[in-house]
């Protein structure tokens, strides 16, 4: 069940709009979400190797999914951008599979790969919401060049050597930045790992 947490939603105006889609099929909230996120999802997909038309299609399908799944959005557990990122990620994985296999696979199979069998308990959802808030703080203190390396290596799937070439820095620097960033994020998130 989605739980409306006004304190959190007020920090995340986009989450508020998803909640109003869920509660009253708010088309103008949808249009605002679309205008903000569709061009960003498209840009993100372009950076990750999707063609212009693929990226556009994923952006539109992701926004359509936001409308259809708004009821499942839990503002206490995740921010709007995070939720939309996961929707777009799953669509992208599905699109890549379709390309290599033809239309036999469906996006719900990708969703299932990321669903945990047990619905997370209240504690875990709230912990997730808190760690996301901490993450935002942590990211703002992370040096830009470290963040860039993380982004390129995990979200753009670039090899360390490719990152070194693109950013014109030595390979060792790429590796040490990636390591430092992970260490720092872990510390900032207070994750005891």
């Amino acid at each position, binding site marked *: 069940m989605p739980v409306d947490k006004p304190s959190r939603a007020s920090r995340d105006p986009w989450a508020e709009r998803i909640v109003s889609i869920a509660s009253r099929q708010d088309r103008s909230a949808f249009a605002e979400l679309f205008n903000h996120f569709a061009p960003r999802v498209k840009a993100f997909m372009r950076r990750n190797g999707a063609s212009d038309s693929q990226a556009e299609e994923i952006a539109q399908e992701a926004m359509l999914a936001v*409308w259809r799944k708004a009821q499942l959005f839990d503002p206490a557990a995740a921010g709007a951008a995070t939720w939309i*990122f996961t929707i*777009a*990620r799953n669509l992208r994985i599905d699109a890549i599979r379709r390309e290599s296999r033809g239309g036999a696979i469906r996006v*719900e199979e990708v969703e299932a790969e990321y*669903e945990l069998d047990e619905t997370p308990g209240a504690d875990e959802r709230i912990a997730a919401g808190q760690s996301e808030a901490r*993450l935002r703080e942590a990211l703002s203190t992370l040096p830009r060049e470290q963040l860039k390396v993380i982004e390129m290596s*995990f*979200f753009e799937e670039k090899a360390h050597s490719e990152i070194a070439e693109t950013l014109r820095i030595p390979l060792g620097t790429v590796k040490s930045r990636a390591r430092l960033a992970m260490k720092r994020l872990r510390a900032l998130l207070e994750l005891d790992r």
Partner: protein
Amino acid sequence: MTIEHHPDEATLAAHAAGVLDLGQRVALATHLRGCPRCREWARAMEGLGGEIVDNCSPASMPDDALDRTLARLDEPAPARRLRPVEAADAPRELPDFVRRYAFGGWRFVAPRVKMRPIHLPAPGPTRVFLLKSAPNSRLLQHAHTALEMTCVLRGGFSHEGGHYGPGDFDLGDETVMHEPHVDDGEDCICLVAMQGDLRLKGFWGLIARPFVRL
């Protein structure tokens, strides 16, 4: 159950980013199912994905993109259809989506060791199978030609890296030589996601090679 061995942060980040192949994702999901700590990190990495999307400079969408999408809002959403569970006897420690895949039969690998392939719906570079070893057996010393992820489902084993019990995750690659020793008392069942082939070392490796069909 205390989990002592976890995937590294980078692997969890790659999982959250969606860039692992399906076989590796099966291994990660199997670990995450039992590990709240790694779930938290994986969620944080999804949060990072959200931040990255939010901070992208917008690409231009066609002028009619919004209108075309608005026009589709009233279309009925396609029903969510998932395949049924194929192997009723698949271990319950596996995530539901894995239990819905087709499982092969148990096959002989080496004395006291059997494997059972899991047929992924979208074949990729990583093969996934269950590996069952009899109590107290010693697996051949081996290294891998590429990445191998192991999730312990039942029982346990030890090797140079420590003891691995239910929930633990082990990553092997070409730099690691392993000679796992299975715990006394019960069968050890693991889910293995493997790229490349095993390389067996030494005399026993040469002898066993014709039998080993991993």
